[in-house]
């Protein structure tokens, strides 16, 4: 059934694109061909891609189908190795430095900045793709560009959004979801009073915990380091973020300080919490289970509220594609990436990922996946609200280390649980950040 739908969609997308391009956008058509024919694979080239284990089977199928189409078109075999998402970072780092192994890697967050000099300069490809498809989103570009040079091609943002129970929100006296942090706090208070509380992880949840902590900090204007990489966590904005987190924590279901990544899903699907933040997977977990039909129909999603900083800022998860220097066939690798970003290919992939992956290029924002289900809509904005890790400093081992060591997660957890005063928690985070950015 999904195949039929995808075939139908790619067919219609092709027709629509054909109609448009034949008419007004002749230049764009020429450019679209440009990136596809910019790189000619070397004779006898083969490629190996190291990627994270797919979270959504449709995404894997679409990626593999695109890859097979590339092999068919060019004769270049592409072997895809999958590693569990936590293992991609060490494996890729070792491959980069040993100089053998996979030719390309689909990696997370700031990984390319851990070994920028071991990566092929892909500025030509990135610029061509950017021009063809309406430009890169700023946050995602930040994960791929060092100075004027692209060391990676942004692939997608894996969006995070508030998932809530519509009926519980209405029962709490809210007809619309509040857009700002103050209204959000009021909603959470009302939910708590109704016995249908919210819950966000304060435990060592790699994805959800970091998303929440970064949103708390950034929405209040805080930052870990300034543009030069000097520690800037000790600020009134951070204090405000912590005070807000404390107030919000009061409204949570008890036990969130022990939550790991899966706990909020479990609690939400069991009806124990009525509001949390998660990827779209939470919604799909509910739709797949007949017993959870009621919850699935009641789920609404929206973006995390806007704080004093005045705009939507979130961490999300980010993935990029990079080519190692030791790749013997860099032209083939670039041709492969260019092929995967051709409009119909990329659209099919985004479709397959059913809103799990948000496009890196603005030109794909009209992908039908975002309008096919209202639940998907907030995830479409992930790339736009995304801000690179370690804001406002440079990306690199320091920013990666601060996140992996849960410095922000710990700071908020220390303060909300009352283990330390907000000032002590900030001071402790300041020390730890300074260590990484020494």
């Amino acid at each position, binding site marked *: 059934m999904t195949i039929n739908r995808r075939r139908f969609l790619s067919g219609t997308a092709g027709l629509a694109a054909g109609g448009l391009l034949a008419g007004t956008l002749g230049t764009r058509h020429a450019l679209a061909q440009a990136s596809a024919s910019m790189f000619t694979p070397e004779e006898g080239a083969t490629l190996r891609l190291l990627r994270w284990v797919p979270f959504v089977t449709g995404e894997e199928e679409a990626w593999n189908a695109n890859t097979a189409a590339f092999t068919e078109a060019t004769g270049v075999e592409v072997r895809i190795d999958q590693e569990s998402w936590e293992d991609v*970072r060490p494996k890729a780092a070792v*491959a980069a430095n040993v100089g053998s192994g996979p030719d390309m890697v689909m990696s997370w967050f700031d990984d390319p900045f*851990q070994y920028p000099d071991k990566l092929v300069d892909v500025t030509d490809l990135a610029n061509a793709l950017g021009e063809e498809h309406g430009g890169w989103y700023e946050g995602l570009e930040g994960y791929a560009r060092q100075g004027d040079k692209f060391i990676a091609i942004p692939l997608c943002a894996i969006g995070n959004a508030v998932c809530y129970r519509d009926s519980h929100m209405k029962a709490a006296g809210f007809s619309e979801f509040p857009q700002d942090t103050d209204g959000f706090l009021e909603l959470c208070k009302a939910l708590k009073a109704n016995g249908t509380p919210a819950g966000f992880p304060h*435990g060592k949840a790699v994805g959800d915990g970091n998303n929440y902590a970064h949103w708390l900090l950034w929405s209040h204007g805080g930052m870990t380091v300034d543009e030069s990489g000097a520690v800037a966590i000790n600020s009134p904005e951070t204090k405000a973020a912590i005070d807000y987190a404390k107030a919000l924590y009061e409204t949570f279901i008890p036990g969130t300080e022990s939550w*790991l990544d899966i*706990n909020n899903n479990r609690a939400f699907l069991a009806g124990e919490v009525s509001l949390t933040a998660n990827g779209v997977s939470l919604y799909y977990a509910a739709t797949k289970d007949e017993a959870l039909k009621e919850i699935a129909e009641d789920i609404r999603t929206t973006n995390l509220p806007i704080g004093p900083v005045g705009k939507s800022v979130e961490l999300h998860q980010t993935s990029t594609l990079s080519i190692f220097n030791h790749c013997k066939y860099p032209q083939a690798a670039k041709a492969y990436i260019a092929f995967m970003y051709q409009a119909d290919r990329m659209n099919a992939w985004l479709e397959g990922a059913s809103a799990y992956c948000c496009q890196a290029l603005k030109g794909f924002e009209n992908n039908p996946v975002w309008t096919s289900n209202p639940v998907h809509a907030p995830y479409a904005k992930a790339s736009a609200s995304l801000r690179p890790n370690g804001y406002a400093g440079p990306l690199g*081992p320091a920013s990666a280390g601060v996140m992996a060591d849960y410095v922000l997660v710990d700071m908020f957890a220390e303060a909300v649980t009352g283990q330390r005063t907000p000032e002590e928690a900030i001071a402790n985070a300041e020390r730890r950040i300074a260590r990484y950015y020494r």
Partner: protein
Amino acid sequence: MQARPARSFSILGWLLESRNGLGFLFMLPAAVFLLCFLTYPLGLGVWLGFTDARIGREGIFVGLENYIWLFDDPVFWLSVFNTMLYTVVASILKFALGLWLALILNQHLPFKTFFRAIILLPWVVPTVLSALAFWWIYDSQFSIISYVLMNLGLISEPINFLGDPGMARASVIAANVWRGIPFVAISLLAGLQTIPQSLNEAAALDGATSWQRFTKITLPLLTPIIAVVMTFSVLFTFTDFQLIYVLTRGGPVNATHLMATLSFQRAIPGGQLGEGAAIAVAMIPFLLAAILFSFFGLQRRKWQQGGGD
């Protein structure tokens, strides 16, 4: 020209014929194995602790910098405290409960072999699986313990097993004890069975109470086994990783972070290989102390033979 082959032949001959030479040959594979898979990684770990190596990048020698930073790092000291607490409390509980269990199993019970067999179950189940089971038991919303107590009307809201620092520590220790008891119990049971029954019978004839027989006969004769078993038990507990990683990842707010889990967190996901190695190396003195204590402290002959110091 002809002397050389003759000499090499004679070395081979010496190797094969002399007692020491043959012994050396037989030992060689084991020695190579130990050197390659134990000494080299240990040496590399110690070296990494003195560098600022990151994953995939050679480090440069930074002397004691990692240790100086750790000395000043409250998270590290918290993990040292947690590790000590975890090891001491869990080991004492495992010893007391394990010895008790061994003494019971050493009696004539109905279905004795059956009980002896199933007692090993917690030890046989892979740690990750039992840890996952405990994860559900301790879940902040769906804990079976909370559920039962709430239905009995004893508590009004779920127990925050892994959220409160004290509770979290107690919970992970309980899970570790559950898992570690069988090893202690079965090993001590084996030790108990080596104690000649005639000694107990003779003491009983002389009018010794069962408590006197336990303290004057069983315990002293069991000490060598206890020393070995507890050394292993302490080492396993001290270096525990899986249980913590599944249950809390060191949370809440690092209250259950052990040195092993902190070392991993900083070294692999965090990429700071040098610092992670330094934390791991910092475990060595504690482990050595535990080994030395058990071997020189618990294995003193005099004490075992019932004499004073």
